[in-house]
C-alpha cells in the first residue's frame, strides 16, 4: 500500500513499478523547463493553475501568463486569439471544465481555425477521488477525438508526459493533453525517448493477447500481464498514448499476431480509446475484443484506489477480460 499512502494508488505494484510523479506535476515542470527554449509559449488559466500546475510556469514567467478567472469559455477563446498572434497558447483547466464547458469555444476558436492552442485537461478520470463525479473528466477523450485537426494525447507516467509536453509544443496546431491528479507508477524511468505523436510504445511483448491501454491503465495492464504470465498467457502491452491520430499499424499488427485485443482506459465506454481501436480492428483485421473502462455511468466520491476497484478499473478485470477472449 506504499503507493496509496503516498497519495497515489496501488497500481503497478505487481509489475514491480516504482511510484513516480503525477502526470499533472510532470506537465507543470516540463512546461516551465521549455519556457526559455520556446519564448512564444504563454499560459491561459481559468483560475485553477495551482491544480493544473500551469502555475509552475506562471511563477517563472509572470508576463507570459494570463488568468481570466472562472470563465472557461472566455479562457479558450482568449487562447485562440493569442495563438492567432503567433503565440503557443497553453490553456488548462480540469478536463471536464475545459472540454465539456468550453466545447464550442474549442470548436470555433481552436479546432476549426486550426490554431496553435494546447488544451490541457487535468483531473481526468475517476482517480481524482474524494471531490466526486462533478470534477471527473470521463467524457473528454470522446469529445476531443470528435474534433477535426486536434491531436489527442493521454500519457501514462511522468516521463512520457514530459515527452508529450515537448511534442505538443513542437507540433504546429491544436492538441489536447489529458492529465491525472494522483501519483502514478513510472513506466519509463527517468525519460521516454521513444515518444512520438501517433506512434504507440510496446512496453511488454507477448504473442497470446494484446492489452492496449493509456493513462494510468498502462500500469494496471502491466500488473495484469504479470498475473497472466503466471497463468501461462503471454500478453503484449501497448501504451497508446496518442488516441488521435491513432497508431493503426500497431493495432493491425497486434490483431494479426495475437488474435485478441483488450482495451483498458479510465474513460466512459463510448467514444474513447476502445471505440477508436475497435474502428481500426473492424476495418482491417477483425478479432475479438473486450473492454475495461468506466462503463456508461457516473462514479462517486471516495478514495482513488477504492474507486478504481469499485468501478472495475483493475488488473483483475483486465485478466478476466483476457480470459473471456481466450476461452
Amino acid at each position, binding site marked *: 500500500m506504499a503507493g496509496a499512502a503516498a497519495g497515489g494508488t496501488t497500481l503497478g505494484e505487481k509489475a514491480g513499478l516504482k511510484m513516480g510523479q503525477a502526470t499533472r506535476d510532470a506537465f507543470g515542470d516540463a512546461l516551465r523547463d521549455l519556457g526559455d527554449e520556446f519564448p512564444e509559449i*504563454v499560459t*491561459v488559466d481559468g483560475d485553477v493553475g495551482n491544480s493544473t500546475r500551469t502555475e509552475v510556469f506562471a511563477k517563472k514567467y509572470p*508576463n*507570459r501568463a*494570463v488568468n*481570466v*478567472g472562472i*470563465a472557461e*469559455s*472566455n479562457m*479558450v*477563446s*482568449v*487562447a*485562440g*486569439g*493569442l*495563438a*492567432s*498572434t*503567433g*503565440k503557443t*497558447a497553453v490553456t488548462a483547466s480540469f478536463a471536464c471544465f475545459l472540454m465539456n464547458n468550453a466545447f*464550442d*469555444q474549442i*470548436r*470555433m*476558436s481552436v479546432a*476549426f*481555425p*486550426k490554431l496553435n492552442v494546447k488544451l490541457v485537461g487535468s483531473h481526468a478520470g475517476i482517480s481524482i477521488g474524494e471531490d466526486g463525479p462533478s470534477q471527473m473528466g470521463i467524457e473528454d477523450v470522446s469529445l476531443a477525438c470528435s474534433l477535426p485537426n486536434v491531436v489527442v494525447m493521454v500519457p501514462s507516467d511522468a516521463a512520457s508526459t514530459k515527452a508529450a509536453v515537448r511534442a505538443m509544443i513542437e507540433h504546429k496546431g491544436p492538441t489536447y493533453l489529458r492529465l491525472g491528479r494522483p501519483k502514478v507508477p513510472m513506466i519509463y524511468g527517468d525519460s521516454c525517448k521513444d515518444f512520438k505523436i501517433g506512434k504507440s510504445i510496446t512496453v511488454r511483448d507477448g504473442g497470446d493477447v494484446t492489452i492496449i491501454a493509456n493513462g494510468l491503465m498502462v500500469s494496471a495492464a502491466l500488473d495484469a500481464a504479470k498475473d497472466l504470465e503466471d497463468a501461462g498467457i503471454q500478453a503484449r502491452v501497448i501504451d497508446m498514448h496518442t488516441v488521435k491520430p491513432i497508431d493503426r499499424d500497431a493495432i493491425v499488427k497486434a490483431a494479426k499476431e495475437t488474435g485478441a485485443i483488450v482495451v483498458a482506459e479510465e474513460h466512459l465506454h463510448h467514444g474513447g480509446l476502445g471505440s477508436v481501436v475497435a474502428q481500426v480492428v473492424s476495418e482491417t483485421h477483425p478479432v475479438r475484443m473486450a473492454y475495461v473502462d468506466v462503463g456508461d455511468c457516473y462514479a462517486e466520491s471516495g478514495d482513488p484506489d477504492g474507486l478504481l476497484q469499485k468501478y472495475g478499473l483493475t488488473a483483475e478485470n483486465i485478466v478476466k477480460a483476457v480470459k473471456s477472449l481466450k476461452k
Partner: protein
Amino acid sequence: MAVSAKKLGLDELKDKAKAIRRHIIDITTEAASGHPSSSLSATEVVTALFFGGFMKLDPKNPTAKERDRFVLSKGHAVPVLYAAMAEAGFFSVKDIMSLRKLGSVYEGHPNMARLPGIEASTGSLGQGLSFGLGQALGVRMDKIDSHVYVMTGDGEMGEGQVWEAIAAAEKYKTSNLTLIIDQNGYQQTGSTKEVLDLTAFGPKVEAFGWHVQTINGNDMGEVVKALEAARKITDRPTCIVSQTKKGFGILPVLEKEKDLNYHGKPLSKKLAEEALALLS
C-alpha cells in the same frame, strides 16, 4: 510594403459606404441567401475603420505583424466585411460575387483558415470579443503597436461569454481593444426589446470599468469622431454603442415589405433593383 491607414474625408467616406452597401446587395442577391440587413446597419462603422484613417493594413500582406485587426463577432454580417476588404484591395469585387457558393472562400460566415485577412472564424455568437482580447494581449506582450476592433451584435450580447470578456479586458486594461456594439434593435425572431432587453448597454459596460460612448452609428461624422476619441484612451478598453437601423440605406424597401427586421433574407432581383436605386 509597410502597413498604413487609408484616410478619406467625410464626403468620400459617405460615398465609400454607398459603394459597400451596393456590394452587399449585389452579392447577397446573387447568392440568394445571406444577411443583408444585418450588414447594412454596420456599414458606416466598417467603412470608417477601413477608410477613415483607423486601421493600419497592407492588403498585399494581410498577416503583417503591425497591422490592426477587425474581428466581426456577428459573423453573419460578413458581406459588409467582404465588401470593405474588396474596396480596400484584399481581393476584387468580382471575387466576392461567389459568396456562399460551393468552393468559394467567401463563405457564409468568416473563415480565417481559408481567407487571409479574416482575423477570426466566427458565426457561433459570443466568442469574438474573447478572441480579440487574446489578440490585444498577444500584440501587447510583443510590444507591437496594434489595435483590435471587435464588432458584436446587440442580440449577441445575450451570450454570457461576452460579459466574461468584458470583465477580463478591464482586468488587463487592454486600451488597444475597442468593442463596437452594433445596436440595430433586432435579432432573429423579433426586436431585442421583445426577445431579451439588454438595451442600456452604455451604463452596463461602463460599470465594468470601460470607456463608453453611445452614438448614432449610421451617422458617418459621429462614427469618425467616436473612433478618434476611443483611440485617445490609453488606460482602459473602449466601447462604442453604435445605435443603428437594421437595413439602413434601403429602409424604404424594408418598409414597403413591412419587415423592418428582414433577418437572414436576401433581396429578390426586383427588390435589389429598387434598393440599388436608393444607393446610386
